[in-house]
């Protein structure tokens, strides 16, 4: 059982239809402005300033408000007012579905309870599998890092869903990994389908669909891995004066070859609003 976002959960259980989910996601997005959008609406930042902060967020594991404070573009009182306004206006997907008449209140309540229970079960199951895996310690810390880093980098929620077996990796043809050589060598990579690679690239680079070709999508996946690798080396690997050297991104090794050996590797499915993708971790021989 894998952890799912509520919309996907409701869709799979037949509680709503795909067009209803898409309409709700659009309405939810419109009712939940990003902090930068809200600041621009209120005349606290201009669009160029908000864009600059978003650019920094793509490569820094920091919140929009913290960067804005540091740059002197917002003061603490302005930031708190913006956060409060964002909280007050925020609508959850269930609330939007209810307002749009896609689901009734009783059914929504039952489905929310079932979803919460499934989330807890899925998370516990994932934790158990990761904890008992030979590479579990490394994996759990990188999963935590992904859950924090990717939403800020991509502006979309991301959660670990399940551990995949090597034979389940054939459906993700776009694979990039970086090998880190040194005291505690490891390979770190991401795999996804081409459509998701495009969605990730558009979110990372802030470009329109027509500006993103396949080569750029794969290139952007490589940069995502590079940024993830940089944080993993700094925050996850032992800080014992170890020295590391990262090789250039490798786009040629299929995911199942990289993580084929359970003893030294692990693949974790990450669910995101941009599509599912896979975190690949391996200890080289």
């Amino acid at each position, binding site marked *: 059982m894998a952890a799912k976002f509520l919309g996907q959960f409701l869709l799979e259980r037949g509680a709503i239809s795909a067009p209803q989910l898409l309409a709700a996601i659009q309405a939810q997005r419109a009712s939940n402005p990003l902090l930068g959008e809200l600041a621009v609406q209120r005349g606290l930042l201009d669009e160029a300033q908000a864009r600059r902060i978003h650019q920094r967020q793509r490569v820094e594991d920091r919140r929009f408000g913290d960067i804005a404070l540091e740059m002197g573009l917002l003061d603490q009182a302005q930031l708190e007012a913006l956060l409060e306004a964002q909280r007050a206006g925020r609508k959850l997907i269930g609330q939007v579905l209810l307002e749009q008449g896609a689901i009734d209140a009783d059914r929504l309540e039952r489905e929310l309870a079932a979803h919460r229970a499934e989330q807890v079960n899925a998370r516990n199951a994932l934790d158990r599998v990761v904890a008992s895996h030979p590479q579990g310690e490394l994996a759990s810390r990188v999963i935590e890092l992904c859950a924090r880093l990717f939403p800020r980098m991509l502006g979309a929620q991301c959660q670990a869903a399940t551990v995949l077996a090597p034979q389940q990796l054939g459906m993700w043809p776009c694979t990039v990994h970086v090998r880190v050589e040194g005291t505690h060598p490891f390979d770190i990579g991401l795999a996804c389908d081409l459509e998701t690679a495009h969605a990730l690239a558009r979110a990372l680079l802030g470009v329109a669909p027509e500006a993103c070709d396949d080569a750029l999508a794969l290139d*952007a996946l490589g940069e995502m891995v590079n940024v993830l690798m*940089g944080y993993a080396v700094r925050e996850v690997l032992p800080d014992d004066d170890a020295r590391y050297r990262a090789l*250039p991104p490798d786009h040629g090794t299929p995911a199942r070859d990289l993580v084929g050996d359970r003893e030294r590797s692990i693949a974790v499915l990450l669910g995101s609003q941009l599509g599912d993708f896979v975190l690949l971790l391996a200890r080289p021989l």
Partner: protein
Amino acid sequence: MTARPTVLLCDDSRALRMLAAGQLEEAGFEVVGEAGNGLQALERYQALRPDLVLLDLVMPECDGRQALARILEHDPQARVVILSSLGAQSDIEECLRIGARSYLQKPIDPEAMERVLHQALA
């Protein structure tokens, strides 16, 4: 108003160039050109004469080290900052010996980039 320092951005990754260009613009630099390999880097340097070159080490058709040597041969005053992968210490040292002003490590930390580029300009 003081003119913004101009930068030639050289890296074979288009995605990295797009990310770095945004960071450079934010830091007050003007990206006047981009190159995806070492040969292009030299050609664009000769044509654009930027204040700074940000040069990746690992590129096709003439890598960053060779491009650095050729740019400095063409203009010994060129200010070149190397963009390197994590831990490429011996390559960095060689580039500094050849004449690079400084280096930056990927993934690029915007604050470090701003500091290093201003030092290179001084």
